[in-house]
């Protein structure tokens, strides 16, 4: 279980729990701070407050260990090497997911520049899913995808949730929010979140 209490970053102030195998949708107008909240939970920006995974404070472990368990996925994932497969510790192990998301199996040696925005977004998801994290912090993970690809992503994440992964899923799509989330958090412009039970 992920426990967030009194998390503060700029104007953001949030407290909530995320059970194992639970998916919560995060909504709110653009620029309200949804990304800031997700990044803060992953400890990618300086922030105050207590965040625990199964009772263990994140400060008790090195930040890289925390982020392998509580993984943030940006809407536009970054790439630090030239080819696709250099971003994976085991490209062959990633192939089933690559195929499932409708990407060509031959794209391993492709230069990243060759990928479309949607392909990058799906490959970024595959890269993050390979970590088998306990908690996924997804920042608009289907923003660049057509509805068919988005449906595949949703079902893929749903499987992970069934296996006990917790997900905080930021989305602008109200229909998607009620489809994927068992609860919906709405971030207000004052930086606090309120819960809408569907």
């Amino acid at each position, binding site marked *: 279980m992920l426990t967030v209490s009194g998390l503060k970053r700029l104007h953001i102030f949030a407290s909530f729990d995320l059970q194992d195998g639970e998916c919560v949708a995060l909504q709110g107008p653009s620029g309200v701070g949804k990304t800031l909240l997700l990044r803060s939970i992953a*400890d990618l920006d300086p922030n105050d407050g207590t965040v625990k995974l199964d009772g263990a404070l994140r400060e008790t472990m090195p930040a890289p260990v925390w*982020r392998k368990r509580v993984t943030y996925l940006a809407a536009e994932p*970054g790439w630090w090497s030239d080819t696709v497969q250099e971003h994976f510790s085991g490209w062959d192990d990633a192939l089933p997911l690559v195929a499932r998301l409708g990407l060509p199996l031959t794209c391993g040696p492709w230069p990243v520049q060759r990928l479309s925005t949607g392909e990058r977004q799906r490959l970024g998801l595959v890269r993050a899913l390979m970590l088998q994290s306990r908690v996924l912090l997804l920042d608009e993970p289907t923003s660049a995808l057509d509805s068919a690809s988005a449906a595949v992503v949703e079902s893929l994440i749903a499987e992970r949730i069934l296996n006990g992964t917790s997900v905080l899923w930021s989305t602008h799509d109200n229909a998607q929010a009620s489809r994927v989330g068992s609860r919906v958090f709405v971030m207000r412009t004052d930086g606090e979140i309120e819960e809408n039970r569907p």
Partner: protein
Amino acid sequence: MTYIQLTYGDLILPALLVVMDGALSLVLRLKLERQLAIATVRMVLQLVLVGYVLTFLFAAVSPLWTALAALIMVLFASREIVARQKRRLLGLWKYGLGAGCTLLAAGTVTIFSLATELHPQPWYHPRYSLPLLGMILGNTMTGIGLGLDVLTNGLVRERAAVEACLALGGTRYQAVLPVLRDALRSGFMPIINSMAAIGLVSLPGMMTGQILAGIEPIDAVKYQLLIMFLIAGGTGLGTLAAVIGGARLLTDNRHRLRLDRIAPEGAA
């Protein structure tokens, strides 16, 4: 060892060449005459002043005065480094990082050469230590300035890539390594280029000076080689220290990228 001594009068005719440049600027409306005049006057004043300061230092051979002169040189070098940065660090580190690394690298290499090769009496004799330090400083400064500039710009430009690596559980060293490599390569480039071109394209000023002063060319070459090796060592050491130091300052112990520690662009 004989050399042809110059009087100040001998310099009047060559100085007319600069006046010619100024006239050219006026005729072609390049608007460079003001800058040219200021630069020329600065050069004359600075060099004459340095001539007298060195005369005094060489006569005094005092460890204190020599150290003070070396310190002032390092401070000017660090100011040059900061002036060449497009993005600057916040707070004391703005000057501190450059100054610390130039001092470390140029100081170490200068003392190393004095202690192992030249053996002047006393070891800090300003006739040897200050010219050596000056040559090494000038080049170390360039390497550090370039390295830091590429590092800060690279981290800003590659922010998404660096943070993607961090978000996937990479350490700050893994995440900044691609940018770090670019920065080190840029820092090393000038010295590699000048080593490759030396003798063919350019005759180094110091060697030319020694030859004009009556030293056998092959002896001047040995001195030049010594200097080039020292410069290469100093540049490597200084650039490495500055780039790694800069990368540490722009990340924190929770392995976050801290671009908030770069001053906003355009800020003085």
